[in-house]
């Protein structure tokens, strides 16, 4: 065997070994959310229960050990793939929304639906999912049409305040999975991807590298909260630099109105309570030169009054959160809100709900 042949053989062997080794690694899962969300449908996997120590999404992205704020979480889903107790199928009150309402980074007993239920003294059913589709999913389920809830609370988070296509559809059909030989190529491709992107070794290397970099010159997006460094979602990702027009706020209000109209025809009342990101509540924590590039008026400056003027029943969560902001309301290593912020929101929404007798 020539030198070159030996070379190719050894290189190939090394690559095959690496590939085989990486088959054992899955995508790094840093929070139950990633394990539970079904990548092929808008739902979570039904009837699951995941317990783990998780770190926030921003900690995961930075891979700086000092900035992670690990938390014990439990995440369970019902048989429909929503985050509710497993045997629950229905309630007089339904919560629609995205990751904030479904409770990314929160325990089962800390989610918005549970906290609102506690405030109102009756169970609340969550139809919040990992996409912006929540209203359409709600409308596509026959059980909600046959026994319409009395109240729907819709809480889109800041980044998902956008025009929605409110439509009924067949969302439950998952993509067919390849079987047999056809499944081999995707599996190898996935192993190759894991090999190239992430595994235990790269994670430790990355932690070392990013940790050293952080100590040397800091990390963008680190803010100081109550005397300790915390990670905030960068302003660009909070869509802070876009004007309400650029974000088509009017379209977002129009689709919320459309949803309210459909619900009203079923005898259901709707409360609209968009959830602000941290820059709307804590602008002072961000670098002033960056903050100066944020759109003025901000989305929430206009969204709340204009949604009200359009005839929606609105709860101004930004005002509620601002009024009780002394204790930081977002997770220290995650883009989502903290458990006590959920309680504030639940209290405010409950108050509005009670006004009509709930």
């Amino acid at each position, binding site marked *: 065997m020539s*030198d070159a042949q030996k070379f190719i053989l*050894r*290189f190939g062997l090394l690559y095959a070994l690496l590939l085989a080794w990486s088959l054992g690694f899955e995508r790094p899962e840093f929070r139950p959310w990633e394990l539970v969300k079904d990548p092929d449908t808008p739902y979570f996997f039904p009837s699951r229960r995941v317990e783990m120590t998780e770190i926030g999404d921003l900690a*995961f*992205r*930075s891979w700086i050990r000092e900035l992670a704020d690990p938390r014990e979480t439990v995440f369970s889903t019902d048989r429909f793939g929503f985050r509710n107790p497993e045997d629950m199928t229905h309630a007089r009150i339904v919560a629609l929304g995205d990751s904030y309402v479904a409770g990314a980074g929160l325990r089962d007993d800390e989610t918005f639906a549970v906290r609102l239920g506690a405030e109102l003294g009756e169970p609340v059913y969550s139809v919040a999912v990992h996409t912006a589709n929540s209203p359409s999913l709600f409308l596509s389920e026959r059980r909600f049409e046959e026994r319409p809830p009395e109240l729907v609370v819709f809480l889109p988070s800041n980044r998902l305040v956008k025009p929605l296509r409110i439509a009924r559809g067949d969302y439950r059909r998952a993509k067919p999975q390849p079987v047999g030989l056809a499944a081999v190529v995707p599996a190898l491709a996935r192993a190759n991807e894991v090999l190239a*992107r992430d595994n235990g070794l790269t994670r430790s290397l990355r932690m070392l*590298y990013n940790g050293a970099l952080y100590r040397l010159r800091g990390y963008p997006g680190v803010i100081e909260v109550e005397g300790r460094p915390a990670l905030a979602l960068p302003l660009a990702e909070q869509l802070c630099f876009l004007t309400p027009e650029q974000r088509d706020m009017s379209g977002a209000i129009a689709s919320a109105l459309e949803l309210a109209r459909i619900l009203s025809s079923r005898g259901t009342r709707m409360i609209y309570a968009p959830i602000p990101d941290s820059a709307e509540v804590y602008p002072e924590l961000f670098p002033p030169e960056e903050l100066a590039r944020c759109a003025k008026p901000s989305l929430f400056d206009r969204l709340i009054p204009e949604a009200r003027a359009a005839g929606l029943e609105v709860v101004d969560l930004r005002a509620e959160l601002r009024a009780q902001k002394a204790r930081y309301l977002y997770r220290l290593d995650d883009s989502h809100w903290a458990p006590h912020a959920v309680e504030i929101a639940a209290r405010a929404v409950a108050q509005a709900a009670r006004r009509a007798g709930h």
Partner: protein
Amino acid sequence: VPLIQAALPVGISFYTFQSMSYTIDVYRREVTPARSFVDFATFVALFPQLIAGPIVRYSVVADQLVQRRHEPNRIASGLAIFSLGLAKKLLVADTLALEADPIFARGSPGILDAWGSMLLYAGQIYFDFSGYSDMAIGLGRLFGFELPVNFAAPYRARSFSDFWRRWHITLSTWLRDYLYVPLGGNRRGRGRTYLNLLLTMMLGGLWHGASWNFLLWGTGHGLLLAIERALGPKNPLLRLPGWLQSSIVFGLVVLLWVPFRLDSPAAVGVWLSAMLLGAGGLGHLEPTAVLAIALFVVLALVPKPGLEWRFQPNGRGLAVTTGLFLAALLVGYGRLSTSPFLYFRF
């Protein structure tokens, strides 16, 4: 009237040029037309170099399309060159970008960060692009193709014509053969020669993208080439020591990268005035950025050109190749600040 936002197919600039060169060469009777459409399609869509070059002439691969040699030596060296390219892109170019991007994002630079960011960008674009070219050449060898070399230590160039013989060689020869020469080249008097140089480089700039900043970049290079041509042996640069000639050429190339990197006229103005007039004060540069610049200078300027082609499939060759390959995979791809799979909206 709303602008049409058409999605351009990947690699369009490369396969357009390749198809053009085929058509022109066939018209000029410099090559015989492909006998099979599959061969022609393979030439146009040859995947190793489809996305980012090198630009391959039909005449270079015409024979290879019909008959290729698959020899262990060539496959082994293909693996080595591919690994080197991967390491150039992931270890060096991306590391330099990590330092440069925050400076560009911050804006309002002083003289230090303006020059620092542009030096980093000069390194990033060279290692990125030459890394891609090496990967294409390496992949080509695995399939029995010999693709042309695209870079030869361009930042060591001692003049601008020398720079363009070393930088994106397949583009500059394409521009020479299909634009400069048909325009008349240097055969129609001095004035026309300068104009042709300028026009060729302006169009070469536009090839990178239809916007004013690429036009400015191309015009700058065209002007410098024309001036160099006009000065001829009277060029005062020629009287300087070699390292100083290279440094001056490099400095001007770096200045011309400003419109290439920054797409708003305002930002270009800010950067150039900070670099040339010190308009933004002294500014500051992070220690890690200084380290990255040092890394670039050592890697780009010190080794002699052609280092990567001296590969031998022995133990040392294997160690270097696998070392580069693994380091690129583990550190480069693993750097999660660019995590592409993290679905971050939720």
